[in-house]
């Protein structure tokens, strides 16, 4: 069930709201009902995977209980290793096998496995809680509350990667408390804005760009067709930001405020700024649970600390790339961003101050160019796109690229969607409600063509 699917928008979501309306007056039912709804949502793709989800929740919760009862760190370490092993098996087993096969020049095992949806996200949720439990920052939670933290359906598949400290206290709160109407209005606005980003900005780009990237797999991209391919950065931005906005909106309908994940990243004036505004929840996770530990661990002499710091930065970004997919192109993409972050850090420390406009242009060009590697699937395909950039598109192709130009203008000029929502819901203006209502119908009509694109981030 996709957020841009009739099954979700017209059946699951309204039914869940009605069911939760009945549960809301009974504090003891709230969490249980949301867990059941979340499991129903998750089982829509593959009912068998709910066994994995349930097992994952139970084992990790028991490990936490074991640690709290005995204070033996092995529970936490073992649990984290097990989580990473499961993720590694589902996501990277074939990648490792293919690379070993290439090294040893003979075929090795190949698993015919489907990646359970959202496994990266719920694995990271477990790790955040377990690490903080060990650090003495996280308290003990009941199984029901912990299950909801992992499975809460608005965020379980592709984020935002909410920390336990951001959401646990909100679970079980009364959604229909005094003032719920404003919360609902904000939620509805987030959903409509998110669907607009997905349906009217990201999907038209997908329709334009997919044939170009398909062509790049087979050979050179000619006639200036490579230029529109740079628009993938806008597609993935509005696709994922749209998804997150719908998730945030749906969360609000159940009384839970999820963290924001994008903050107009393509308006950043340097790459450090960009990574603080793009997929914010993943980057703060990587910062707190990968980069800072790697940066602070004592290896070598003090005078090498700067080298260690930058190495940690590079490694974190390479891991960020690998997290996005089991392919060397993702690793390269992450490593390139890591290198660029190192250069930006050094420049900011030792170099002259760049004018904001120049900083913005350099950042945007770098992001647009590296997104080609992210999307192309292979270096050969990416190089075919890059080589094609020597040819400029003709007027006809430029005119066909209007959706890219619109998306680019939105990405470069508009504020973050949460600021747009805040502006639209500052006061209860019925004219805005009417326009949003009509926009919702227009989106449903667009989705009625049944060839809506999946959210790009579902594959991660």
């Amino acid at each position, binding site marked *: 069930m996709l957020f841009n699917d009739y099954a979700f928008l017209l059946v699951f979501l309204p039914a869940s709201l009605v069911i939760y309306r009945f549960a809301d007056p009974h504090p003891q039912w709230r969490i249980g009902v949301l867990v059941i709804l979340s499991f129903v949502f998750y089982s829509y793709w593959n009912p068998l995977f709910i066994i994995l989800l349930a097992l994952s929740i139970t084992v990790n919760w028991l490990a936490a209980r074991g640690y709290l009862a005995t204070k033996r760190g092995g529970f936490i370490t073992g649990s984290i290793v097990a989580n990473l092993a499961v993720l590694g098996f589902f996501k990277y087993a074939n990648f490792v096998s293919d690379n070993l096969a290439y090294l040893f020049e003979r075929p090795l095992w190949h698993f015919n496995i489907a990646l359970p949806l959202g496994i990266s996200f719920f694995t990271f949720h477990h790790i955040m809680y377990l690490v903080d439990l060990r650090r003495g920052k996280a308290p003990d939670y009941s199984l029901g509350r912990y299950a909801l933290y992992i499975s809460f359906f608005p965020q379980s598949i592709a984020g935002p990667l909410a920390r336990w400290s951001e959401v646990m206290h909100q679970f079980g709160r009364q959604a229909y408390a005094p003032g719920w109407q404003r*919360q609902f209005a904000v939620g509805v606005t987030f959903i409509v804005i998110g669907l607009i980003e997905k349906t009217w900005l990201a999907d038209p780009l997908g329709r334009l760009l997919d044939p170009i990237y398909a062509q790049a797999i087979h050979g050179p991209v000619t006639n200036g067709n490579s230029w529109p391919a740079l628009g993938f950065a806008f597609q993935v931005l509005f696709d994922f930001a749209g998804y997150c906005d719908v998730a945030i909106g749906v969360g609000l309908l159940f009384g839970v405020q999820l963290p924001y994940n994008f903050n107009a990243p393509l308006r950043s004036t340097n790459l450090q700024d960009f990574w603080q505004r793009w997929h914010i929840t993943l980057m703060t996770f990587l910062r707190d649970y990968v980069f800072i530990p790697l940066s602070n661990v004592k290896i070598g002499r003090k005078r090498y600390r700067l080298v260690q710091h930058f190495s940690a930065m590079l490694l974190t970004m390479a891991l960020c790339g690998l997290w996005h997919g089991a392919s060397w192109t993702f690793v390269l993409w992450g490593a390139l961003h890591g290198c660029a972050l190192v250069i930006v850090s050094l420049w900011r420390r030792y170099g002259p101050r760049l004018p904001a406009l120049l900083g913005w242009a350099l950042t945007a060009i770098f992001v647009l160019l590296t997104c080609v590697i992210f999307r192309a699937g292979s270096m050969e395909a990416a190089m075919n796109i890059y080589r094609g950039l020597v040819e400029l598109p003709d007027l006809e192709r430029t005119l066909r690229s209007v959706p890219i130009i619109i998306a680019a203008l939105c990405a470069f000029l508009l504020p973050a969607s949460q600021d747009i929502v805040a502006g639209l819901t500052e006061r209860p203006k019925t004219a805005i409600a009417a*326009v949003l209502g009509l926009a*919702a119908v227009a989106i449903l009509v667009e989705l009625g063509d049944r060839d809506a694109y999946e959210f790009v981030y579902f594959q991660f």
Partner: protein
Amino acid sequence: MNLSTSSSDSQAWGRWLATFLCMAALGACMIFALVILVDPYDSGRFGFIGIKGISDESPRTANASRGRDPQFSAAVFGNSTGQLLKPTELSQATGLRFVQLTIPGTGPREQIVLLRWFVRHHARADALVIVTDPVWCIDDPALPIFNPFPFWLYSDSPIEYLGQLFSSRALGRLVRRVELGLGLRTPSAPDGYWNYELLGHGEFRPAPPPNEPADTAAVAETQFPAIEQLAGFIANVPNVPVVLVMPPMIASDLPRPGSSGAARLAACKGALARLVAGRPHSNFLDFRVDDPLTRDRKNFLDPVHYRAPVARRMEQRIAESLRVGNAGPTTF
């Protein structure tokens, strides 16, 4: 974002939510009302304002309108290999009123749906000409489709149809239909004829099929599930003349005699011929043969798409079959 409000604000936000829901509901109702009034695909289920003519250019969807048009009593079915058969020529030669209901890129599953649609909307159909090219010879009982097809448009259920009208494609068709009603658009050809020769000049390279020896035992056991389904369909319309047409292809690309391809094609042709054997005014016409007409590359746009001179000869044979059944010729 601060979400706290006062109680008077809560009432205002309540009205905000009510406005949102009302506008969404109103918008949805208006769209449903419009599609019910106009019937964007002219399927005959709704369309109370009664716009006449075909505003659609795609035969996949336009044939819903053509297939129920009472001015026609006979129809040609198939894919692009039957598209050059001219309804006016067939009508002139037979005295019946023919419409072209072929749809490029379709197979047996879609064509049987079209056959049912035509028969459902014609209490008395005078003739069915079905161009059964080798896609009818597949052995996969699932009858796979190779291109998207709007099965919902030809469905028995108006609800299924209505469910598909809430889409931007349907609204696009609705606008065209309204334009047609206002005289702002020229209607598409009511008989569905379209000459694919206008598309290109027909440069092609013959590609003879592999010459594998025939496995007679395997061919004898071959099932033709599409032909079985067709048999079920024509058994339900016992009084309607049916002409099955195996369309021609360039002779150089025909399976070599004695090859497995030739054996399989022969078995398929046999199954088709048996379907109409003894049926009044019905026949199986086999044009997929080595013949002076099929040896001449000038008669083909590509290996399977023949040109007008071939089509005219086929039309003559179809007309003769409808007159005398299988007492007439069975090939060129």
